[in-house]
């Protein structure tokens, strides 16, 4: 691994990695069961230089912003390196959002250049908001021959020629603007510096090292802070390889583990639970005798790995389980949302540790991670090296707001000094999450102070961003809350949900509302849908400027009605 303390920028560190590990494989890209290509670090550089040259010719340099809108693939990382090489700022966007949301975030980020996949480009350029964007250049990848791409350029036509000039950056310069959420009301673009990334990478790889020969399966979207870190920066500065699949179909993901002998993979809790279900179903089909033997071996493995994982012993005891994952899997990294302890324990007992943790885009990736020494299924782990955690305003049960201080904490929110000042106070990141620290220094999360949910698929949903879909419903006023914000469960888990609170219109009444709300729900992405309706007959408390006082309304609701009053949709 490179010693990252010697570097001022991601571009410089990655550039040295491309030299040092020139003949090692860095990328394998597959589409279903077909392999598109595999690239060495040298070939990666050869593919990135024409892109960097095209940027240089624009011109594009220090501090210029370029967005990437692609599903996980080699070109994502090649584009990112080309941007960093030219001293630019990466704006990674979630390819799963709608074209309207893409246009909104592109406008907010003030990106001047866009790298985009052809199918997404087709949708974006038909979006009404697209014409107003200040994009100087769009590079479209894999456009079919003869396809109309308007004023965009084809990625494949980036020019050959002499090496472009590398643009050095300092540690405090911006490296990325990463959207933690928010496409409706208030987009939150986290400004992450070169220092944020370099320090986060240093501390994460202390506990979860990469080395040449390691293969990381990249399934989480690369725009997500976790995959950007452990599916790009981490493996690259250590000479490891990243495997991309151009599909998220469970059957192809399953096949990829043995085919590419995967070492690490990051997954969301939804995927983890899916794998657990299928493994349990297979175990249940075993004849009684074999099932008893399996249960005995699992119990033996649990005993032998009580203090720390022993991959070799686990592979020996449970060879068939491990072979199904390729026989080399060291750890599954789970991120983005809460994972049930029973699921974590299930995998650990099979000798497949799950590194669960807790993080925010605002903190670059992770604040705490399970260090597996010993494995704990009931917590979200310990603070990473270099991260300080404190609990403020703790009640008698020790629960209070989790705050963090580290070199990986973002510089602030893009163009939102007010929100930045509220969120980072004297260097401490106010997470808005509630938790407590135990005697071993492990963090336990118990709920959120923020009106927000994190879905099982790892997406942050702010109710305020969903409200526009319900405008015009026959009601005097309405607003959306996360159920866990109204009635804190004091434990995380289960499905988090959104509740629509409506003060009905006197004439229209509330009878037709469930059907109407269900119809409006269909306009939203599945993870943003409202699952309950609460009829509320009092005026909403409002500020002088007529904004709803959400915390006040939430308090009134929690005091006066039970969760059982919510009508399920």
């Amino acid at each position, binding site marked *: 691994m490179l010693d990252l303390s010697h570097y001022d920028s991601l571009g410089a560190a990655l550039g040295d990695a491309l030299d040092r590990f020139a003949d090692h494989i860095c990328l394998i890209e597959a589409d279903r069961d077909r392999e598109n290509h595999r690239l060495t670090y040298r070939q990666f550089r050869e593919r990135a230089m024409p892109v960097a040259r095209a940027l240089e010719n624009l011109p594009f340099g220090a501090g210029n912003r370029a967005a990437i809108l692609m*599903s996980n693939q080699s070109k994502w990382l090649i584009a990112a390196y080309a941007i960093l090489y030219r001293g630019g700022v990466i704006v990674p966007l979630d390819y799963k959002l709608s074209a309207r949301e893409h246009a909104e975030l592109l406008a907010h980020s003030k990106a001047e250049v866009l790298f985009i996949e052809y199918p997404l480009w087709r949708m974006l350029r038909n979006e009404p908001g697209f014409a107003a964007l200040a994009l100087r250049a769009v590079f479209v990848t894999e456009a079919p021959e003869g396809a109309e791409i308007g004023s965009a350029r084809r990625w494949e036509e980036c020019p050959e020629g002499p090496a472009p000039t590398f643009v050095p950056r300092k540690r405090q310069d911006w490296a990325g603007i990463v959207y933690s959420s928010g496409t409706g009301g208030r987009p939150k673009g986290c400004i992450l510096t070169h220092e944020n990334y370099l320090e986060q990478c240093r501390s994460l790889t202390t506990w979860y090292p990469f080395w040449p020969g390691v293969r990381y399966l990249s399934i989480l979207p690369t725009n997500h802070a976790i995959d950007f870190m452990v599916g790009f920066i981490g493996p690259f500065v250590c000479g490891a390889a990243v495997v991309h699949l151009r599909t998220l*179909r469970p059957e192809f993901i399953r096949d990829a583990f043995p085919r590419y002998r995967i070492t690490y993979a990051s997954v969301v809790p939804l995927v983890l639970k899916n794998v657990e279900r299928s493994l349990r179903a297979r175990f249940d089909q075993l004849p009684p005798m074999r099932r008893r033997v399996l249960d005995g071996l699992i119990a033996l493995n649990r005993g032998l790995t009580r203090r720390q994982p022993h991959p070799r012993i686990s592979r020996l005891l449970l060879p068939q389980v491990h072979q199904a994952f390729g026989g080399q899997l060291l750890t599954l990294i789970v991120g983005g949302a809460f994972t049930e302890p029973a699921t974590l324990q299930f995998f650990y007992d099979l000798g497949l540790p799950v590194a669960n943790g807790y993080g925010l885009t605002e903190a670059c990736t992770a604040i705490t991670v399970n260090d597996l020494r010993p494995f704990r299924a009931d917590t979200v782990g310990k603070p990473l090296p270099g991260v300080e955690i404190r609990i403020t305003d703790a009640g008698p049960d020790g629960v209070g707001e989790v705050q963090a201080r580290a070199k990986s904490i973002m510089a602030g929110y893009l163009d939102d000094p007010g929100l930045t000042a509220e969120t980072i106070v004297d260097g401490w990141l106010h997470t808005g999450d509630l938790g407590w620290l135990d005697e071993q220094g492990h963090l336990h999360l118990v709920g959120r102070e923020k009106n927000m949910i994190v879905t099982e698929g790892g997406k942050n949903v702010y109710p305020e961003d969903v409200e526009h879909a319900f405008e015009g419903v026959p009601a005097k006023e309405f607003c959306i809350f996360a159920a866990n914000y109204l009635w804190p469960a004091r434990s995380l888990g289960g499905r988090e949900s959104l509740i629509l609170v409506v003060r009905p219109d006197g004439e229209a009444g509330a009878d037709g509302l469930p059907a109407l709300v269900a119809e409006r729900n*269909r306009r939203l992405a*599945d993870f943003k849908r409202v699952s309950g309706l609460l009829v509320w007959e009092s005026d909403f408390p409002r500020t002088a400027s007529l904004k709803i006082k959400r915390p006040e309304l939430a308090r009134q609701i929690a005091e006066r009605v039970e969760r059982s009053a919510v009508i399920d949709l």
Partner: protein
Amino acid sequence: MPTRNLDEITTEILDLAAKKFSVPRAELKPEDDFFKKLRIDSLQALDLLTGLERHFSIELPDYELQGVTDFRTLAERIQARVG
């Protein structure tokens, strides 16, 4: 393969979805939201896509499901590839 019209494709999707997720066929309509009606998550929706690929002998990239929530629109995406 004989050319199918949109209604035929929609009917075949509804038949297949009903069978795959054990939902009474009579309860499914073309304009229904399949996430809600079949009670499936995004991963199961990808699984449905695989079933449809096999049925129609086509390849449907994941992005064809993007922004699609009802059977009818899904049928349109498939029709464009069935040709």
